[in-house]
Every structure is written in structure tokens, then in C-alpha cells.
């Protein structure tokens, strides 16, 4: 029997497979058994009601899709009174995701969302369609440090900091978050993109720019996970473009302790369960007693000398 559990700081997950914020809700219980998941991850909530951005909110692009939903939310009160109890019908730990435009509001949100029903706070400082003054703190080291520090001082809950791949030096941001007291890093949110409709000459989605998600971003985010895992001691949760078992393994080899899955839920909603089953089988077949042993298991040697490598058999 493979031990499928993983520890993210003080939180133990029954398996490393979680849905990604904004791509998951209890509505998924229409098609899959939510109790199988490593954790439940709620849609990002902010203090006040937000309508979100004008449709169309998504468009297919080459490597997947771009979206600009605009973080619609019924606000924190509705979240705590209605949505949290709804999540508590299911057994996996509940990760609440919060967003705010100021450090003060982030602090207050962290305090208010830290109820007993919430197991982990995910701090979404990386929604790509917002500027640093509008909630996208994850583009700057100091902003990241300051907001995470304040949240750390406010709550005893484990805090996971969701990073932005749009930052030039994601490792520096990762270190800031660690230094500020984050318990884990989620690497990462979407990459800012643009698609223009060549018939209408207009942006393909209502809010012009959109965040790119899906398989196309995987090679970029796997690289970031690897780089962050080398630089920090706290666990990394890989997120970006996972659509199959092999992708999860790749993220774990790169250094992720667990993963989050967004786009696949749209593409193959049953896939997330298939991946959990597949991962267990794969570990058994490859002789891994604990799935956690995959984390960082990439063989990381110096590149071979060019002439030797170019004389060696292929594959």
C-alpha cells in the first residue's frame, strides 16, 4: 500500500491533489466525489460584493485558455455564513482564499476568515489582471513581505502564499514570502496574456487582458517550482497546466509537495479523481512506498560535457 498522504507544514492531506481556487466549488459534487480530494480550495473572496468583469470572460488560446473573471464574490459575510457551511458537508480540509487591495484590508480579511471552519488561508496576491496597488502584490518583494508579514501576525492558521508567474524574479518573491512567515507557497497563478479577434479587431475577452492557464504554461511553472524549491525550505504547491498523472509526477520531481488543478476541471472533470487513482498505481508500480518521496526527486547533476553527450546513444 502506497502512503498517499502529504504534509504541508502542519496540515496533512490525504493525497497531494487539490483543485485550484476559482476552478472549484461544491457544485463539482454534481460529477465527482469531493471527499476524495486532498483539500477543498474555495474561490477567492474579498470583503465587499464584486460583480466581476464583463463577458466574454474566457477565450481559447493556443496553450489553453485566457480568463478575466474579475474575482466576483458575494463578499466575506456570505462566504462565512453560506459557502463555508456548504463546504463543511465534505471531509477534506478547507482552504479559504482571500484577496484585498490594501495591506490593512488583507490583515482584516485574514482575521475575519480565520474561523474554526477554515483549515488553511490561501493569500491570493497574484491575480494577474490587477496591478500591485490593486491586489497584485506578488510582483514585488517588499509588497509581498509586508502583506504576508501582517497576515502572519494576525492569524494562527497556516498561510499559503499564491505567487505570480508575471514577477520577473519569482525566487526573490518566494524568499520574501518565506521570510514573512508563509507556511507554503502556491506556484502559481496565471500568466498575463492577450488575444485579439482578427475579425472584429477587438480583444477576445471583455476585460482585454486575461490570465493564461492550461497545459501551455506547464513548462514555465515547472521551472518556477524547481527554482523556488531550491531557494526556500517551506513546501511548494505546484499549479499550472496539469491535465494528467504524468504532469503531477513532473511537478513533484521538480520539488512540489502537492499540486492544484484548475483547467483540467473544465476539460475533464473526472480527471482529477483519475489522477489520484493513477498516482497511487504509479507509485506502487515504481516502488514508491510514500508519494511524498517524489518531492524533489529529480536527478540533478551538472550537464554533461557537450562532445561526450553528442557521442552518446540517444534516449
Amino acid at each position, binding site marked *: 500500500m502506497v502512503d498517499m498522504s502529504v504534509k504541508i507544514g502542519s496540515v496533512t492531506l490525504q493525497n497531494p491533489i487539490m483543485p485550484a481556487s476559482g476552478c472549484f466549488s461544491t457544485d463539482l459534487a*454534481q460529477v465527482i466525489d469531493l471527499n476524495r480530494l486532498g483539500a477543498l480550495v474555495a474561490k477567492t473572496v474579498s470583503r465587499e460584493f464584486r460583480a466581476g468583469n464583463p463577458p466574454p470572460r474566457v477565450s481559447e488560446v493556443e496553450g489553453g485558455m485566457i480568463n478575466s473573471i474579475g474575482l466576483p464574490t458575494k463578499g466575506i459575510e456570505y462566504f462565512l455564513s453560506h459557502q463555508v457551511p456548504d463546504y463543511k458537508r465534505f471531509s477534506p480540509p478547507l482552504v479559504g482564499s482571500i484577496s484585498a487591495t490594501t495591506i490593512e484590508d488583507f490583515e482584516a480579511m485574514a482575521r475575519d476568515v480565520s474561523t474554526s471552519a477554515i483549515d488553511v488561508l490561501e493569500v491570493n496576491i497574484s491575480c494577474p489582471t490587477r496591478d500591485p496597488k490593486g491586489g497584485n502584490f506578488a510582483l514585488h518583494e517588499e509588497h509581498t513581505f509586508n502583506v504576508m508579514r501582517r497576515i502572519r501576525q494576525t492569524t494562527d492558521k497556516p498561510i499559503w502564499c499564491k505567487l505570480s508567474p508575471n514577477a520577473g524574479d519569482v525566487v526573490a518573491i518566494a524568499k520574501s514570502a518565506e521570510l514573512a512567515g508563509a507556511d507554503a507557497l502556491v506556484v502559481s497563478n496565471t500568466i498575463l496574456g492577450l488575444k485579439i479577434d482578427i475579425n472584429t479587431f477587438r480583444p477576445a475577452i471583455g476585460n482585454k487582458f486575461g490570465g493564461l492557464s*492550461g497545459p501551455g504554461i506547464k513548462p514555465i511553472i515547472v521551472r518556477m517550482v524547481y527554482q523556488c524549491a531550491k531557494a526556500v525550505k517551506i513546501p511548494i504547491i505546484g499549479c499550472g497546466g496539469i491535465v494528467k498523472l504524468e504532469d503531477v509526477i513532473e511537478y513533484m520531481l521538480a520539488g512540489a509537495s502537492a499540486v492544484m488543478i484548475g483547467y483540467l*476541471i473544465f476539460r475533464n472533470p473526472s480527471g482529477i479523481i*483519475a489522477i489520484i487513482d493513477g498516482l497511487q498505481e504509479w507509485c506502487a508500480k515504481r516502488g514508491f512506498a510514500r508519494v511524498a518521496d517524489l518531492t524533489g526527486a529529480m536527478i540533478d547533476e551538472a550537464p554533461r560535457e557537450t562532445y561526450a553527450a553528442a557521442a552518446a546513444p540517444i534516449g
Partner: protein
Amino acid sequence: MAHRPFASAPYVVGKGAPALAPTHIPAEESLCPVVSHDWINSEYKHLVVDASPKALAVKPGQFFNLLCPSPDAAELWLRRPQSVYRIDRENRRIEFLYKCVGRGTFGLATLEPGDELNMVGPLGVGFAIDRRWKHIVVLGRGVGLATLAPISQLAGECGIGVTAILSARSAEFVMADDLFGKVGDVIAVLDSDATSAVEHVEAILKRLIAQRQADAFYTCGSNRLLQLMKRLGKAHGIPGQVAMEQVMACGLGPCYVCVRTFEVDGKKELRRVCIDGPVFDLQEAVGW
């Protein structure tokens, strides 16, 4: 083969395979064999699939989110919603009628009998009917005719009369007239002979109201016709429903991609077509 681009099974239900998802889960991702797939005119195809038991529980107005094959060498990333056109419980089949408009539907059109179609569903809220009603009016256009079509089944089961006003560019594009013909009257209104003009349709509706043949209104497929039915419904106190469309991603509720504007007591709000609908109260809909 070593490489699997997408996670498959175990909850994908194949032909003859048992449903592995717990039974309290109402919808599923299932692989349904194509039985037949024919062009019914120059733009629309009629698709019949063998349905899994959960899929077969679909109700009129509900939809499936279909994983269309790619029509070309590039991937198709999102599913495409299609409402059920006919539910053939006897033969355990589900039928779709769809218009080929872009990559998704062109890809869907490549499926041949024997191929498997990956469907997620049944999804959403279907049409409601009140068994006390005697006669209802259905008014649709374009792809809306496909969505409205199973109302004929619903009305038939309840023994309620139907007048179906089917709007189309020309006679070629009048669809679902056979289904409605079995349970009621069909009035085709066409652009080609100008009978589809709003004033003309309004006159028909007013006549039906006068004849007390309009206990409820149903519409889909045209903003113009939605506004007409809304106005007459309001004026005459006739309840109604509209089936909405919107671009979707998940089709299940979480992503908030498929929002449409509704208005209740002068207050606007956004609702998700995939889970709050696709069928909504006629008076609350703002635009199609």
C-alpha cells in the same frame, strides 16, 4: 501507449461500463457511442448517441457539455454546451441538433457512427411545466429551436397543448416542426416571406392570448423574440421561461464564466447560465 494527454477513467463511463461514481452523484463524464449523425440542412447536424443511465435522466432544457474533437491539427481546449434535443428513453438514446458555427461544432461534426463522444451531464435547470395548464406557446429561432424542441415531449407527457411558432430565415431552416407537429400546432414564420417580422409574430401571439391558448410562454434563440414575449407576458400576466446561452468553461458552476444579467425588482444581478439556468424566468431575463 506511453503518453496520455488527458487523464481518463475511472469516472468516465464507457459503453457498457458501470458507472463508477457514487450513485448519489447526479451527473457524470461519460463516453457515449454515436448511433447516427446526419446533416439536416446546410448548417445543422442531428446527432444521436447511446446514453449512460445518468445521462438518460436528462430533462428538457438541460444540457451536456461536450468534448468536441478538434477539426484540425490544433487542440480544442474547452467543451461546448449543447442542450438536449430529444430524449429517447425507449432506445436509451439522447439526441442533439446543432448548428456548425466554429471550431468546436465543426469538430463535433467529424464524429462518425461508432465513435465515442465524451459528454458531461446532464447539467443545469430544465423547463418547468404546470400540469394545470391547458395550452402553452413556444417561440424560438435558430439554435433556440433545438433547445425548445423537448418541450414537445414534456407537453405531450402532461397532455398539454402547444402552439410552436418557429422562426427561421427560410423554410430550409425550420426545425423541430416534426416534434411539435405531433403534440400541437406549428406556425413557421420566415424571413424569406417577411412573416418573421416582430409585428406579425406579435399578432399571432395576441391571437393565441385572445383564444386563451397561452397559459405560458417559452422562448429561446432571439433577443428580439425574448423582448416581445416578455412585453406581452407582462401585459397579460402570462408566466414564461427563457433558455439562455452564454460562453462557458466549466459548465458546472465554479468558474463564473457564463454569467448573464437578470433583473428582479429593478435590481440587476448576474446568474450563471450553467447552473442557475439555462432556463430562467422570462420576466427576469434582461437580454438574450
